């Protein structure tokens, strides 16, 4: 069996490893899209903050790892998939034939239609190449503007700040991480950032960027202000890399459509990771959820099915964790619950502590927290297993901080 995987990010690499585990004899080929050894985007912020070196981003760091696992890693990118002849064509013309194909080509950052984003000094923070450019421009004392305080933007915020730059964050929505935290938590996070010396301008749009100033860039804002900066980092969302599939027969709809087995509309072709539009565990609707836990779940399920097994996905559960200069926030599932949901809140604003739980009857459907990271994983356990809270429901509604206790209690029949 010839398994070919497009993409050498976490989805591609995890899938290759699972395939190898399940089929010792399969021929496995991993095709990369960048001139880099397989790496993990998620590790980039930790290079910028100095916690690790660039080598620390490599997916599988032992020398000779892929050779030993008999996983053939080659350079793409892939130009086209020929589903008729079961072959992929690389840029440059080389052909790789497959019996089963996994598309794990990830997503790319969106560049909003703002004049000036093509100027030197404007970068995304998505690839190792971006990271190297940022390292050159974000030195101690440099003025840096960050466009976007979403989840990825807020992770980048932390790493830029740790480099000692003068940082201004500009977010068009009314609060930080609006899809992860509610107004209370978002406002707390903003005031925390400000107390640590980061200027956060929510409800503000970057209108245009000009060059030619002493520092390099002048960033014009919707409130009339202008900020001079050496570097502008753009973190305004991502979109799946589906362009190379146009005309292939693999159905896409702002992301590859898959069934619960991660199979695409074309038999023997599967998809995993940021490129996929799969079922949201909480809403049941199709959505692209570009996070690491979903990418590795997809990969494992796809690999099981590619080797003839039967695995199906219960849907992607949104989950995020952020560390913003020491303040840890998390969110799971429907954290801004539907109108009829019941929520329970514990707030100590002065201590930057917040916990909000969402219930649907006796089941937890979502949660968010600030400053309370201990045993926080039980939230996933509760939500994804749709555990009946029984008598603990009322106790949790009264005091959401008894979360871990509730979990252990239920498991032990207390």
């Amino acid at each position: 069996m010839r398994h070919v995987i497009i993409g050498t990010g976490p989805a591609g690499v995890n899938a290759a490893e699972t395939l190898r585990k399940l089929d010792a004899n399969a021929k496995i080929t991993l095709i990369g899209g960048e001139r880099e050894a397989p790496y993990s985007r998620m590790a980039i912020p930790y290079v910028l903050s100095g916690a690790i070196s660039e080598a620390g981003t490599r997916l599988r760091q032992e020398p000779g790892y892929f050779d030993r696992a008999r996983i053939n890693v080659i350079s793409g990118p892939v130009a086209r998939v020929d589903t008729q002849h079961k072959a992929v064509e690389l840029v440059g013309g080389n052909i790789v034939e497959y019996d089963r194909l996994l598309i794990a080509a990830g997503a790319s950052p969106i560049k909003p239609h703002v004049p000036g984003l093509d100027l030197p000094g404007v970068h995304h923070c998505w690839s190792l190449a971006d990271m190297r450019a940022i390292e050159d421009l974000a030195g101690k004392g440099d003025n840096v503007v960050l466009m976007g305080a979403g989840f990825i933007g807020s992770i980048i915020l932390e790493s830029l700040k740790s480099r000692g730059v003068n940082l201004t964050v500009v977010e068009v929505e009314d609060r930080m991480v609006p899809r992860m935290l509610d107004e209370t938590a978002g406002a707390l996070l903003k005031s925390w950032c400000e107390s640590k010396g980061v200027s956060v301008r929510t409800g503000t749009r970057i209108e245009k960027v000009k060059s030619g100033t002493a520092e390099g860039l002048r960033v014009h804002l919707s409130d009339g202000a202008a900020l001079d900066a050496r570097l502008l980092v753009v973190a305004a969302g991502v979109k799946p890399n589906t362009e190379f599939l146009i005309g292939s027969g693999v159905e896409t709809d702002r992301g590859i459509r898959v069934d619960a087995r991660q199979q695409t509309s074309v038999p023997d072709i599967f998809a995993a990771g940021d490129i996929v539009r799969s079922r949201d565990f909480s809403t049941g609707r199709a959505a692209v959820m570009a996070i690491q836990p979903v990418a590795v779940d997809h990969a494992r399920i796809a690999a099981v099915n590619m080797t003839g097994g039967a695995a199906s996905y219960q849907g992607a559960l949104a989950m995020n964790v952020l560390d913003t200069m020491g303040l840890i926030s998390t969110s799971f599932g429907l954290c801004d619950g539907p109108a009829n949901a019941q929520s329970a809140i514990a707030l100590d604003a002065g201590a930057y502590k917040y916990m909000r739980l969402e219930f649907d009857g006796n089941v937890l459907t979502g949660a968010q927290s600030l400053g309370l990271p201990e045993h926080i994983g039980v939230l996933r356990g509760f939500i994804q297993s749709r555990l009946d809270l029984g008598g603990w429901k009322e106790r949790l509604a009264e005091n959401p901080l008894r979360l871990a206790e509730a979990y252990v209690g239920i498991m032990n029949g207390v």
Partner: protein
Amino acid sequence: MQKALVLDAGKCTGCKQCELACSFEHEGIFNVSRSRIRVFIFEHEARFVPYTCTQCDQAWCMQVCPVGAITSDAATGVKSVNAATCVGCKVCTIACPFGTINYNAITGKVEKCDLCGGDPACARECPTGAITFIDSNLAGYEKMQDWAHKTDTAPQAAS
């Protein structure tokens, strides 16, 4: 033969010797807040429940780690964190449905039960036999596995 930590809540008196032993073994100090095993105290019901990682097969923490910092020992089944590789991103702390891998802000790394390399201090110090370290095919272990399966949020990846 694989050995497992068996936590028998029925025998626990809530003395927290295990927490002290764990903290001392790993951190060199007696501080229950630094322990990787935790005794939950249910006052109304007068119940005490020791709780830590079950070294589950699914290994959510290991699967999700973006840099491969968590590995499983083929012989013992222990999942342990390689602190030199861990970047402190905390994704494992939200992915583990048992909440048994936690972030340590002092070291900037995550930490979990590693069975003390084969001689768990909590089991050694438990005065009542509530925590034992025994062959994993003895009954107690199965009970633990059942417990793990109850919350098994596995994407049904068993083939």
